[in-house]
């Protein structure tokens, strides 16, 4: 049961009311999408996240079908607006 740290930023942190949470996903082939589904179940405000938000695993942007492993840090990122 991979244990995943999930981080929320900017508007998403406002929606969820938190910066960080931890979720467990089942199986050895869990993906970011699975993490996202689990977050929606456990973090009340997360229902209002968009269906397919930008995501990063361990500081690198990934697609939602990217695999996650125990100890990974998954970040859910509002549309980027740097510069």
């Amino acid at each position, binding site marked *: 049961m991979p244990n995943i740290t999930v*981080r929320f930023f900017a508007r998403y942190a406002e929606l969820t009311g938190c910066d960080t949470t931890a979720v467990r996903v089942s199986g050895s082939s869990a993906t970011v999408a699975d993490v996202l589904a689990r977050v929606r179940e456990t973090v009340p405000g997360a229902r209002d996240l968009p269906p397919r938000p*930008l995501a990063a695993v361990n500081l690198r*942007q990934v697609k939602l079908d990217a695999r996650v492993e125990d100890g990974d840090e998954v970040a859910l*990122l509002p*549309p980027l*607006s*740097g510069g």
Partner: protein
Amino acid sequence: MTYLSRNPLAVDSLLARVQSPERGGTCVFLGTVRSDDDVTGIDYSAYDDMAVAEIERILGEAQERWVNARVTLQHRLGLVPVGEASIGIAAAAPHRDEAFAACRYVIEEVKKRLPVWKKELHADGTTTWVDPSGRPHPLTPSPQSGEGERIPR
């Protein structure tokens, strides 16, 4: 090297990081907070660790592509008042083509890839999150169409 800073950016220190007697052309880009509508400033926040990692990747790519160039950048975080710079990029190279190209490459990639967010502060005390297309996000939780369509790199 501090790529992220809460203090005003100093062009001279950016220049000092990239210029050398072998590099005859230097191109600098500064992005400053514009006085749109009733905006008084922008509050910048970042996923700091990832922003630094992404900056290092972007600069590394520029370095590979323009091997004789040196490029650096600094992104400011926190409240940036109208008229002050939120980002500064400096690229120096033996010739100007490379300096312009490397500088341009970095700002375009920053706009696409840096995990940094802007919250506009208005004269009436309200705030809005800025959408990358320039449309403001209302703070009410209505998912924007297209927001999830972006293909991560």
